[in-house]
């Protein structure tokens, strides 16, 4: 047995076609007026370069390497993020340094180079989860684009200065403490 299709009985007014057309025109004109008198900020369209979309909480955008108040990097070059990264886009080179203010002469570890290949990165946030020092995290910035491949290789200073301007922090390009010449350990 087939499906019985109920036919809608149109009233004579609807069958004239003129009245339904006028109803439809009323609807479109309502939309027209509503859109006309809506301020630009409240319209559905976000006019991109002038207005930017507010990303939801937990959005994973561009990475930032955090720093202490004095500008020293929080990262201790433990390589956890490099290990955790499923896309293998993080590469770290460690170095030793001595920070007399904080470590009282002890030698500490920090990345000499910390680079993320943004072309490879899948913005999964595993590095953020793996980090024991909360030194790396992904923020809401989504404008990651460049004209060539080389400028998508983000180095240590790029990652540290990513948000310095919107956060009102100073741009830094040098560690506050010098590194210690590497001692070779004779095995």
């Amino acid at each position, binding site marked *: 047995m087939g499906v019985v299709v109920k036919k809608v009985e149109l009233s004579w007014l609807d069958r004239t076609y003129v009245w339904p*057309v006028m109803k*439809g*025109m009323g*609807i*479109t004109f309502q*939309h027209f007026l509503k*859109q006309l008198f809506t301020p*630009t900020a409240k*319209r559905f369209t976000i006019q991109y370069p002038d207005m930017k979309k507010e990303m939801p909480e937990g959005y994973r955008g561009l990475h930032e390497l955090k720093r202490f108040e004095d500008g020293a990097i929080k990262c201790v070059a433990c390589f956890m993020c490099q290990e955790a990264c499923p896309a293998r886009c993080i590469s770290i080179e460690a170095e030793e340094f001595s920070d007399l203010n904080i470590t009282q002469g002890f030698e500490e570890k920090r990345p000499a180079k910390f680079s993320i290949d943004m072309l490879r990165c899948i913005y999964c946030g595993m590095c953020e989860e793996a980090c024991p020092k909360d030194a790396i995290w992904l923020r809401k910035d989504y404008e990651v684009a460049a004209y060539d491949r080389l400028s998508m290789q983000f180095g240590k200073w790029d990652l540290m200065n990513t948000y310095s301007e919107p956060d009102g922090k100073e741009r830094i390009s040098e560690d506050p403490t010098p590194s210690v010449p590497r001692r070779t350990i004779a095995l």
Partner: protein
Amino acid sequence: MDKLASLLHTSPATAWMVAKLVIVFAGVFSLAALWTWVERRGSAMIQDRIGPNRAALFGKIKILGLVQPLADGIKFFFKEDLVPHDANKALFWLAPFLALVPALMGFAVIPFGRSFTSGGQEYHLALLDPGNGMGLLYPLAIGGMAVYGVLVAAWSSNNKWSILGGMRASAAMVSYEIGMSLAVVTIFMTTGGYDPSEVISAQGHLPWAWNIVRQPLGFIVFFTCMFAETNRLPFDFAEGESEIVAGFNTEYGSMKFSLLALSEYCHLMTASALMATLYFGGWQVPFVKDPSVMLSVLSFLVKMLFFAWVFVWIRWTLPRFRYDQLMRLGWKAMLPMSMVNLIFHAWRMSQGH
């Protein structure tokens, strides 16, 4: 006017004619260009979008994107002008002009303001003075020629989609012309003449004496047929973007396409001017017996632009008709309706109204 004429070594009549020509054609042309913007912004607003608002003069003055037509024009001029290999080259070049010229010429007979006397000479605000013997038969005849633009464009470009679009469009235009003509004939009958100035003066300045109140059925028929004549949605059979690529202008690019598109908007302007003249009292101002010249021109412009906006409005409200639905509406609804309208008014006149 006399001074200007003597300065240009012409007679005042010629100078006035040239001035009218410039005013009318520049006016219709710029309104058509403006209406491309109105169409885009209006459709955007109807669909809760924003539309083109970024085009700016010198990169700074935006004025709601009003310079978008200018930018479009510049872009069209610098586009490569392609002619398909197997196209009929002469006709392919001729078609945009065949489409544009009738669309512009139809406006010539329509009075866009009241006549006035200055310095013992009477000036008429219409390209063709009243009493030229053609009257409103002229725009109807010229409107019939608009078919050639579409058909020649379609046929010469040697493309299946184009031919399909052109054939359907010409069939639609021809079949709707009958209903439209009968509706207009009724007006000629009740007016007792077919000169536009007679039609306007017969309607008077009171809105309830206008033809829209006297002949609402005729207005509906004429209005519907105007959509078919101008080839706009819901009777968009010449283009039909969703089914036959772009119809008759598939192969057209650069300024030739621009001319075809402009001709559509010029046609729209002429059609709305016709509607204002025939059914809404032309330049008559409601409740004002003897309006000044400027006021009458303003009144005409308001009416005309309102109908031009209704064209845009309807386009973004109604879905497209199917071809058989269009034909059924044309022959089985529009034609009988206009005939009933004609016979009813003939009967009323015979009863001495």
